[in-house]
């Protein structure tokens, strides 16, 4: 089974990945085939496993104390643009242009 163009486009929108070329799509195809092997195992009546450690994988509970924060300057060093200690972002999500308007090899598939 091949992955349809609709699914590929949907994935590009959701995850903002760019399959770029045929090789990229084939790599995806192979990854799906590899993962699909899991379907061959009969898991009827078996609870999904959270970890190989099973019940030894314990969730650590932290006390409700203030131990972090107050590092505005450091955090803002990562910002390309800032305004008075706020991060600056575009006005809203910039939608990925429609398939027809993009230079992607998916066009023409």
């Amino acid at each position: 089974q091949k992955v349809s163009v609709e699914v590929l486009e949907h994935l590009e929108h959701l995850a903002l990945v760019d399959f770029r070329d045929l090789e990229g799509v084939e790599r995806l195809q192979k990854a799906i085939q590899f993962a699909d092997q899991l379907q061959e195992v009969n898991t009827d009546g078996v609870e999904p496993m959270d970890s190989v450690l099973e019940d030894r994988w314990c969730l650590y509970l932290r006390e409700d104390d203030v131990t972090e924060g107050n590092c505005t300057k450091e955090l803002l060093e990562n910002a390309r643009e800032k305004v008075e200690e706020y991060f600056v972002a575009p006005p809203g999500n910039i939608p990925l242009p429609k398939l027809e308007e993009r230079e992607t090899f998916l066009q023409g598939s």
Partner: protein
Amino acid sequence: LAPWVPVVGLEIHAQISSNSKLFSGSQVQFAAPPNSLVSFFDASLPGTLPVLNRRCVEAAVMTGLALNCSINKKSLFDRKHYFYADLPAGYQITQQRVPIAVNGSLSYSLCIDSKMSQMVTKTVRIKQIQLEQDSGKSLHDDTRSQTLVDLNRAGVGLMEVVMEPDMCCGEEAAAAVRELQLILQTLGSSQAVMAEGQLRVDANVSVHHPGEPYGVRTEVKNINSIRFLAKAIDYEIQRQIEELENGGTILNETRAFDSKLGCTVPMRDKEGKQDYRFMPEPNLPPLILYDAKSLPANMNHQQVINIDWIHERLPDLPSVKRKKLVEQYGILPEHSFTLLNEDGLAEFFENVLKRTQMKPKRVIGWILNDLLSYLKQHSLPVKDSPVSSFLLADLLNLLEKKEISSTAAKQVLAELWKGEGKTPLEIVKEQKLELLQDQKELEQICQAVIDGQENEVIMMVLG
């Protein structure tokens, strides 16, 4: 024209009252300098991991128990993916597969008539309560076409309470949310102040004809007060009815409530149906809770949360407090409802009772009719009342001992309200409001009145 049945469900997000965030040690505080309460994890810097805050789990368990839920002894964390500037990780950690509490109920009261003399009790089912992260805050600067992002709120713990569509109108939804607010405040699990964003409500609204399947529902957001909640829902119900009666259809969309115009409008930036690509949170194992029976023998108890221990320490919920007030003082259910509806009023009432011989049934009139109406007229909370419980008790004692009349008492209260520091006794003496007890003196006054009004007396005697 066939009747319409409106159906209303609610999704409520309550900010957990805690010192630090759900998965990190940065502080939880309203109104702090932008990006000052942000840890590396909150900013989603690589290499950081979530660490669960015990207090947040306890808050969710308390709330679940207070809402009659089954607490899941094993619950799971998941990632919900979407892109937005105030969600630095690109996903929110939530509980989509197995939340911490399920299948509860909330009972609330409604007045049948506007005079508040008859109340009915209704119930709404609670589908579930889940723990999840709050996002940061976006400030839209339309003039410069940019968004300013403050991550102080990013990662704060939330309890999402999902109410089944058992309500039918704005009034019911408002009453249910008000009761939830009181419960949360009593538990202390959330301060639930809507104005500060600690309680956010989204409404799901649809209409259908009796006997037919449910109609398409819309989601209404951006509701900032309980009053607006009722308005938004009632508007949306009407809008849908009118649309359908005119042959139109309802779109499954998200709409925002515009409080200035009093209507709902479609929200921009909502592209079709979202695919959140839910996946288990790989960095967090299942959350295991215990009870008295399943308590492990040799575990460090700081790492153990015992549901029964929490249950035993739950405070009296509002419904229980109301019942106790009615039983203890013989007041009406409507009275105890109002007492609990105003912050501090029940305490004020009980403080007055401690200092006066006057019967509770009489005192309640002064609290609800006189004191409360003064407070409402001046938009004052009980804690800012210029008339303290001591002063009111002193006044009521004068009345009880028949040293002043009821009318005089109202006059004294009006004077006390000015907050000039005078005691009721001082005001009574100043304005000469004492009731005359002396029989002879009273006779003399009456005689003088009669003597001064001879004509009228003759008319009265003649009939």
